[in-house]
């Protein structure tokens, strides 16, 4: 029942990504394999630049893998699907002009290269020759134009991808060149071109099946049971995928998932709970990698007494993040203090010293006294009950707050009630949940700009807004990176919210499988997974 709070994901930005795709700019066109090795996918043996390497051995082609997924598919349309759990599956079926790579870079996919005009307003994409859709048709410039216009809302006025709103025109220059014009500079827009390329007009065709260019093609979907995909024989990356067939099976119950992994009826399952990881590591491979989510005790900055910065600071002092890490993170999580993933090294700044990672009861009590609450106060923490991790974290936090005199109680609510009452209507005092980034590094910070529709904690800091305005105006990633660090600092000083952990993503993999790669984005790439030769 784990639905991860947000939605898809993010990455390490290659500062060089303004032109071309990692390693394969312009003329190196036919050289597909250079891309492949860049993703860390070698034919056999051990990829060297990836965490969590699976069993070594010679790779074999063929076979079926059943992957357990935690939630049902919300849409088969890659542009309207919003659930993270859906996007992680569709990653295998669809590709954009560019796509995410395990090391956080973007690699070219349907495009073979691209360039950006000097004023930053015109993107020129050169399409890769010979990329075929799953229906056998070659990808044309019309298909690309249609797909981007659909995302940007140029077809019917409703942008399906909000960052692509700034696109004003998509022009076909020639058969293999498409130009995209935007009305304002945004160096992070390139990440939005990971959105799927679909056949021209396919979304209007009655009963259209999902057709993409990815390593696997769609076979069938049964609600509550799962989705089946088969090998795309015409996939442009030579040598991929290995498997003939992948079945994504919906298993909403963690106990069932454990049993199935043990029985061998599923071979791969990610986002294990601490209990599952402990249990399964005895008999199968359990790989771990930092996840793409930040968990926090979110505080509503607009309600009494949390509107007083001293009260919020007192709460932050009271939190013992190390203890939370032991109880819910299995000790493998990274303690964080602000809204940025530690894996985004170019943008992350470690601010754990400000309030410390352990509890500082004296400092907390002192601040509460200054704020006029020497005996503490009552606090309701509303938690979405379908996330055991957040429920458990909330239980720990209640105990920690008790130590400084704050009488907190948990109000467990349904996920849907949470979305309406807490997220949309902002009628709450505190909540525990996690945020997942978008495909842009600044996404997790953008929501705290005071007028953002996603600013559900009602964070209001003029200083923050001013710096954020500079971010938007900045035209290079270096510049943005500096401002991002400033934003993180302000968020911590103002005690906007109590960030806790970046919990590790643990994946159970059958012993005879290898090649599983972690991505800094929320995807489940099956194209590189293979059975080890016996």
């Amino acid at each position, binding site marked *: 029942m784990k639905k991860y709070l947000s939605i898809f994901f993010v990455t390490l930005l290659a500062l060089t990504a303004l032109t071309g795709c990692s390693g394969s700019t312009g003329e190196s066109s036919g050289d597909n394999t250079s891309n492949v090795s860049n993703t860390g996918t070698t034919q056999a043996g051990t990829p060297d630049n990836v965490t969590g390497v699976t069993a070594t051995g010679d790779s074999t082609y063929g076979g079926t893998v059943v992957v357990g997924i935690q939630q049902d598919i919300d849409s088969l349309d890659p542009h309207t699907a919003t659930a993270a759990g859906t996007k992680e599956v569709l990653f295998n079926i669809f590709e954009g002009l560019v796509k995410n790579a395990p090391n956080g870079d973007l690699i070219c996919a349907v495009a073979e290269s691209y360039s950006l005009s000097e004023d930053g307003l015109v993107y020129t994409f050169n399409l890769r020759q010979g990329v075929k859709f799953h229906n056998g048709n070659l990808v044309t410039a019309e298909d690309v134009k249609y797909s981007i216009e659909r995302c940007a809302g140029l077809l019917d006025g409703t942008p399906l991808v909000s960052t692509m709103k700034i696109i004003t025109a998509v022009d076909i220059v020639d058969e293999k060149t498409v130009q995209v014009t935007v009305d304002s500079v945004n160096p992070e827009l390139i990440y939005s071109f990971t959105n799927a390329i679909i056949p021209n007009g396919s979304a209007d065709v009655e009963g259209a099946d999902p057709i993409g260019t990815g390593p696997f093609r769609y076979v069938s979907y049964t*609600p509550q049971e799962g989705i089946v995909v088969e090998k795309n024989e015409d996939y442009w990356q030579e040598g991929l995928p290995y498997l003939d067939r992948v079945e994504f099976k919906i298993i909403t119950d963690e106990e069932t998932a454990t049993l*199935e992994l043990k029985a061998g009826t599923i071979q791969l399952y990610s986002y294990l709970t601490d209990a599952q990881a402990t249990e399964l590591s005895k008999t199968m491979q359990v790989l771990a990698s930092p996840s793409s989510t930040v968990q926090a005790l979110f505080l509503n900055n607009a309600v009494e007494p949390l509107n007083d910065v001293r009260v919020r600071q007192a709460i932050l002092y009271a939190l013992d993040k190390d203890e939370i890490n032991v109880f819910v993170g299995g000790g493998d999580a990274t303690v964080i203090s602000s809204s940025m993933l530690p894996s985004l090294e170019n943008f992350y700044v470690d601010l754990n010293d400000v309030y410390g990672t352990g509890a500082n009861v004296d400092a907390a009590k002192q601040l509460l006294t200054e704020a006029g609450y020497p005996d503490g106060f009552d606090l309701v923490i509303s938690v979405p009950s379908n996330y055991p991790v957040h429920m458990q974290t909330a239980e720990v936090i209640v105990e920690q707050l008790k130590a400084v005199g704050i009488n907190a109680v948990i109000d467990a609510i349904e996920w849907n009630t949470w979305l309406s009452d807490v997220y949309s209507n902002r009628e709450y005092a505190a909540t525990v949940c996690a945020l997942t980034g978008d495909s842009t590094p600044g996404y997790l910070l953008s929501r705290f700009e005071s007028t953002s529709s996603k600013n559900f904690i009602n964070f209001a800091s003029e200083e923050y807004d001013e710096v954020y305005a500079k971010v938007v105006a900045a035209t290079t990633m270096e510049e943005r990176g500096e401002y991002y660090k400033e934003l993180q600092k302000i968020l911590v000083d103002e005690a906007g919210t109590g960030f806790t952990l970046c919990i590790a993503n643990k994946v159970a993999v059958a012993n005879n499988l290898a090649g599983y790669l972690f991505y800094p984005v929320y995807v489940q790439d099956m194209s590189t997974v293979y059975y080890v030769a016996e």
Partner: protein
Amino acid sequence: MKYFVKKIVTLIITLLLVSILAFLAFQIIPGDVVHSILGTEATPEREEALREELGLDKPPIERYLNWGKNVLRGDFGVSYRYSKNMNEMMPVKELIGDKLPVTLWLALLSVGITVLIAIPLGVLWAGTKNKFLDGVLNVLTQTSMAIPAFFLGILVTYLFGIALKMFSPGAYVSYKTNFGGFIHYLIFPAIAIAIPKIGMTARFLRNSTLTELTSDYVRTARSKGASEKRILFKHVLRNAMLPVITFLGMIIAEVVAGSIVVEQVFALPGIGRLLISAISTRDFPVVEILILYITFVVIIVYFVVDVLYRVLDPRIREK
């Protein structure tokens, strides 16, 4: 004939009542489908566009009447949450039709197991003079009813799945691909459902048999010199079965309406699980039809029970 007409009228009234209640419930409970679909990616424009697309911008009464009109025409609408392909949502009829066989077969198997074991057990129990056997059966049936369904599911999983390796827990086999495998898998959840029902049914049968044995007509039969066996099988059982039939009816209705817990523990994609997920995602068209279906089943089962009652008990028939 009059009886049937009356039954049908009451059926229709009940269904109408239920559909209105369910609709009202969805107006009252917090959280709506638009938030559920868009999640945290919601922007005011997309929310509004989606509301319009789903027809949620219209006043409630108009929506209910539209829905009712369509249902009467046989159009059950489409799910808000399950998509059929890239640009169409799953029709409710197809969605439920797909899950229904799982639940129906599960019900059939569990009721079958219950009847097969509980009826002979109840009769044996009522007829036995062996005090030790009586005590053992008493404790066993009490215990079977005291085990929580979820706990029982886990115990069955561990015993038959992990220890005896008679099936792979969680590895549900679709009836569409392998019917034999499907039934094989279903036997174990059916056992988990049946265990407490066996206890209940056997107790019911035994209690009502013992009650009947003290009644006047039995005394008369005895005084006429009828053998105990003849009294039990010829006279008593027929009457003693009456409350048991009501009971079995309730069991059937309960299982056909979806065994939520057991479906969850054994990862069965049946009606019960569909209902829970549809409620939590606020998938109104699915919930509404499922509730109507459940009500329909419950009423029909009770109707059949009622008819059986009349057939078996002349006292009621005469009235």
